[in-house]
């Protein structure tokens, strides 16, 4: 990792201030994201995994400045994006795109496919009105849809086709970086594979960089260069794909991997699962010290008191766990 990263996230923090109680009489803070640091290299797919509420989507949103960061920096082309207002952010929006989970709610039902895909092109003045039609046709063919789809409305399309349109729209202004926020989770199994292949093809063709947010670990293993595991708003582990799946270090990563079912009846029946007890604690009141210590099978006394340091256990393999650190020292 000597090359200058495409995007650098430094100690990113996002707290949401909410009001609870029937009349909103109680102020509270959701600790959605705490002290998250990572580099994203050009051309790679960095995946973030974890249970719902772990802050993986918040990370994506905050990087793109769709959520205002409460602290920390996002450095892109020498600029700290968290300091930019919407007007100054606009030129960067061209480079930084997002594909959302649900292709049913992210397309305007009153806009045709062509209008949806063409809008960012016109907005950023990347083509004249006369060139627009050809540009839309090219984009649709990039995502495997015929040009005649441009005049269709979202309700005429299947879920897989809609997700292709959403991807075409994200590609419209020739971005460098795309956040895929659970982009395939809402799709059927046979369609998921099509969209994964499409994302991989487009990455090759346009040298795209993905931040891939997902909860399906098998899919993540299939497409990622590096994988980050999050728990309750903090990164637990970040490593190259094979290192993470073959030699996971953090006890949470191990538990998460052991929970994934496999398509082999014999192995499934005989497998010893390490099942985590209980639910993820509330981010309104996260546990002290290491946030995982309440569910951790190897928790020690120090874990409930001191936040474990985020450091490299091996080159490129980062982890935050007291047990790991003491093993190596």
């Amino acid at each position, binding site marked *: 990792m000597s090359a200058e990263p495409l995007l650098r996230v430094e100690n990113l923090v996002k707290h949401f201030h909410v009001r609870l109680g029937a009349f909103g009489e109680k102020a509270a803070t959701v600790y959605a994201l705490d002290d998250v640091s990572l580099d994203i290299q050009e051309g790679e797919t960095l995946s973030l995994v974890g249970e719902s509420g772990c802050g993986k989507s918040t990370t994506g949103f905050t990087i793109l400045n769709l959520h205002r960061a409460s602290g920390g920096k996002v450095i892109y082309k020498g600029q700290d994006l968290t300091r930019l207002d919407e007007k100054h952010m606009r030129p960067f929006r061209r480079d930084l795109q997002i594909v959302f989970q649900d292709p049913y709610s992210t397309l305007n039902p009153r806009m045709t496919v062509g209008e949806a895909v063409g809008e960012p092109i016109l907005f950023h003045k990347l083509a004249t009105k006369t060139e627009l039609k050809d540009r839309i046709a090219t984009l649709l063919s990039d995502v495997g849809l015929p040009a005649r789809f441009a005049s269709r409305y979202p309700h005429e399309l299947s879920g897989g086709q809609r997700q292709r349109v959403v991807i075409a729209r994200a590609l419209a202004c020739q971005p460098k970086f795309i956040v895929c926020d659970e982009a395939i989770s809402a799709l059927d199994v046979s369609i998921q*594979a099509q969209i994964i292949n499409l994302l991989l093809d487009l990455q090759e063709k346009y040298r795209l960089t993905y931040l891939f947010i997902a909860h399906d670990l098998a899919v993540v293993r299939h497409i990622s260069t590096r994988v980050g595991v999050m728990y309750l708003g903090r990164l637990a582990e970040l490593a190259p794909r094979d290192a993470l*799946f073959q030699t996971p270090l953090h006890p949470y990563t191990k538990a998460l991997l052991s929970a994934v*079912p*496999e398509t082999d009846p014999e192995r*499934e029946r005989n497998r010893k699962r390490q099942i985590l007890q209980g639910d993820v604690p509330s981010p309104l009141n996260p546990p002290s010290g290491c946030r995982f210590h309440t569910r951790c099978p190897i928790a020690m006394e120090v874990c409930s008191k001191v936040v474990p340091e985020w450091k490299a256990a091996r080159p490129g393999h980062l982890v935050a766990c007291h047990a790991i650190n003491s093993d190596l020292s």
Partner: protein
Amino acid sequence: MTARISEPPLLDVKGLTVEIDGRRGPAVVVDGIDLHVGRGETLGIVGESGCGKSLTMLSLMRLLPNKIRVSKGTARFDGRDLQTMPTRELRKVRGGDIGFVFQDPMTSLNPVMRIGDQLCEPLIYHRKMAKTDARKRAVELLRLVGIPGPEERLNAYPHELSGGMRQRVMIAIGLACEPKLLIADEPTTALDVTIQAQIVDLVKDLRNKLGMSVVWITHDLALIAGLADRVVVLYAGTVVEDAPVDELYANPSHPYTRGLLASIPTLSDAPAARLSSIGGTPPEPGRRPAGCPFAPRCPLAMDICQRDVPKLEPISSGGSHRAACFAVNKVLKAA
């Protein structure tokens, strides 16, 4: 646990057909499905959205929404016909002999009723328990499904629980009267893998303790591998393959099943550059092609597949592995 062949199955569905009334006339959603579940057996029903897996199970309980009805077929449970049974009788079966766990605990629990009252309701209605006994039993049930502090939880409303907790409450309600058959419709789809693993282990455990039969509806072929004794694969409202679980994964025969299995990335095999995928999309109900419904997406499609509908036929000597495919059946007959 596999059922003995000589015993009549606990649930026996024959030629079940479900139609939706649409603007263009009735559309067939479930097209003549045959199913059977033995005593103590766990049947997995696998299919993608719109294949009719949920409607099949709802129709058994006569819980179909407006404008959707059963047009043909029979469903016998424990020797009694569920379709012709008087509603009064059926009410005793629902929640009594057959427990149901619905997909979405957010919408299927009553938001203005305390968890305890929702758990006691079937016990008081079906088992004629006194309220105090029912509450004791409710505490046991919550403990059984792994909810900590069950006594206090009885007074909680659904919104006070997390998704995993709510789903456990749904399962506890389904199990309340120790049903002979538990029908679980995508019970873990909305949950995280860690919670999913907890729920799957729980159901396995309870099945062994209570000796009940389970029908588990899912789209997840990996999940069902470790859970079911037998798996039925649905496509566009028809059964395309039906096999004992080991047989299905070792020797998937219908091209759709093969395609599905090949398109799932796993944690164990080497990551390939591209996943194999099934082209096209499943047909909408009412716009299904003549002939085999999978023919337009099938790599093995022949002329006959466009014209005739293949029957579900045994492909092994024992007859326990069946597939509905001209290509597969022809290969076997020639051999």
